[in-house]
């Protein structure tokens, strides 16, 4: 510790150069933290969507829909715990430009399939009792300024009612917390039974059956068995795990993993040269000073450590600042919206980042440190 002042002074020998090198390292690690964090974020979101759920949709196209008659047959497959359904309702609030993605469902079953949605039992009960009831996510309620007991008209351009009107009147009977599943999760549910009764057409259409299963290891077998049930019928099915579905939906983001790693790799590689160059230059410039330290009795190993510590200090400090900044970015609303409120910078990214900074320091610091170690006092003092 008593050598700290020596190391510190050495580090700040060329102030501007050190500041710029530090800034580059900070920016690089900010980038590293962001990309790896986002990467991890997607992994978390997709793995929260666990494989104890299966999705059954029409083999031809999801929008073609499946008959409600499939429900009981799917339930009969061994290993199936509960089956709920989604029928896409669409909808808008007051004007068509203000969409309100809504789904008709069997709420009791839905919340038993999605075990991690938090809802008060009395809300679920109210939903069962109120034909025109709707449940919506707390996030949506907050965003719209709606609360339980509110009465809201929802317009639709698809599902006209039997009475000819295209405005459905709903009563908000409860809210639920869906943050565990990220922001993309459907947030507005009406009763399927009511929808079926009141809609002028399209009775018995289901876009997705959501199947809760007992044992994730059985996902493959159950999927195949469900699809086999309806093979060669008018309404053939395609059964997928939720992760597979989510991964497919995320595909438009490209191979995030690969891109993140490629960028980070390129940046760190460049950084390596930059830092190594800074360190090497700084050691070259003070050949005489290092020779003086050795003259005064600093052993070769000690001089090596001094230089190496400088590199460590530079890289670890700047790296940590970069990672801290990127962690802060994950607390911003923009990213919260993607990954849910629970998500913050994963520890593994910080640890990985610290490891990278350490590696950077060693790789860029060792050559100049070794050079300092090998320095011959007599030659260096004579300027040879």
């Amino acid at each position: 510790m008593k050598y700290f002042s020596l190391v510190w002074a050495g580090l700040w020998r060329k102030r501007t150069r050190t500041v710029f090198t530090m800034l580059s390292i900070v920016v690089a690690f900010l980038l590293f933290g962001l990309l790896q964090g986002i990467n991890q974020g997607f992994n978390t979101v997709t793995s929260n969507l666990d494989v104890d759920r299966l999705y059954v949709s029409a083999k031809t196209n999801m929008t073609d829909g499946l008959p409600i008659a499939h429900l009981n047959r799917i339930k009969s497959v061994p290993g199936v715990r509960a089956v709920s359904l989604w029928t896409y309702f669409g909808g808008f609030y007051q004007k068509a430009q203000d969409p309100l993605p809504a789904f008709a469902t069997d709420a009791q079953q839905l919340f038993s399939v999605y075990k991690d949605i938090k809802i008060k039992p009395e809300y679920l009960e109210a939903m069962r009792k109120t034909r025109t009831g709707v449940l919506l996510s707390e996030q949506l309620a907050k965003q719209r300024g709606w609360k339980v007991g509110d009465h809201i008209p929802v317009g639709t351009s698809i599902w006209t009612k039997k009475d000819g009107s295209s405005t459905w009147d709903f009563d908000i009977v409860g809210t639920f917390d869906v943050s565990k599943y990220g922001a993309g999760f459907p947030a507005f549910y009406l009763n399927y039974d009511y929808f079926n009764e009141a809609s002028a057409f399209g009775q018995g259409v289901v876009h997705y059956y959501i199947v809760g299963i007992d044992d994730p290891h059985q996902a493959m077998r159950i999927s195949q068995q469900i699809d086999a049930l309806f093979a060669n019928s008018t309404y053939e099915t395609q059964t997928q795990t939720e992760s597979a579905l989510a991964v497919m939906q995320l595909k438009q983001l490209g191979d995030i993993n690969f891109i993140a790693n490629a960028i980070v790799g390129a940046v760190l590689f460049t950084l390596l040269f930059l830092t190594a160059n800074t360190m090497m230059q700084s050691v070259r410039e003070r050949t005489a000073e290092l020779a003086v330290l050795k003259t005064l009795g600093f052993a070769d190993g000690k001089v090596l450590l001094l230089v190496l510590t400088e590199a460590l200090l530079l890289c670890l400090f700047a790296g940590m600042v970069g990672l801290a900044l990127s962690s802060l970015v994950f607390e911003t609303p923009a990213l919260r919206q993607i990954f849910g409120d629970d998500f913050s910078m994963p520890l593994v990214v910080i640890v990985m980042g610290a490891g990278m900074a350490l590696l950077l320091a060693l790789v860029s610091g060792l050559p100049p440190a070794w050079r300092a170690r090998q320095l011959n006092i007599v030659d260096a003092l004579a300027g040879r």
Partner: protein
Amino acid sequence: MTAIVSLRNVKKSYLRGKQTVEVLHGVDLEIQASEFLGLMGPSGSGKTTMLNLIAGLDQPTSGEVVVSDKRIDKLSRGALADWRARHIGFIFQFYNLLPVLTAEANVEVPLLLTNLSRAQRRERVQTVLQLVGLADRAKHKPNELSGGQQQRVAIARAIVADPTLLVCDEPTGDLDRQSAEEIMNLLQALNRTQGKTIVMVTHDPRAAEYASRELHLDKGQLAHDARRVA
């Protein structure tokens, strides 16, 4: 009087390209404790080379170097570093202070290698800075000091760890006449009042006057004894 430094038939050669060049051709020398030795000689005669051998910065090709009853010509690099820290104070022509450190931090550097506490180090640094008359410049960086002041900081650094021997390579070589005199007075005082043994290489006859003994080195050979002052 006992010899604090003995060189016995010391030879030193360097490899220049493929050729071996002998710079010191078998030097014999004894330096007594509390002596102030002035070493003069033409450029290239081997003065710095000899000083480096005495100070344990370099090793002879053959011969013996004994300082304070210890053979140092066969010590390893690491052992020599330790030994220098405990026994030698260095003063150079161009001061060789660390430019990023304040005067007091520069003076403290040799003490970092001891196991003195922070407070003890502080105290010693203040004492020697006072001794060289620079207590009021403790917080200044070298580039804020004159050449003479920098050399005094260097002297403070050389004596702070209380070494057996001070070696000076042209300590006034870069100074104007007045600063040179101040520095020489300081070295002489250290020699006379504190009994420091000093070996000084110099080109400056005025500086050499301050020494208690003068030796001449010519083409790698000592021309024994010019003058001895009481």
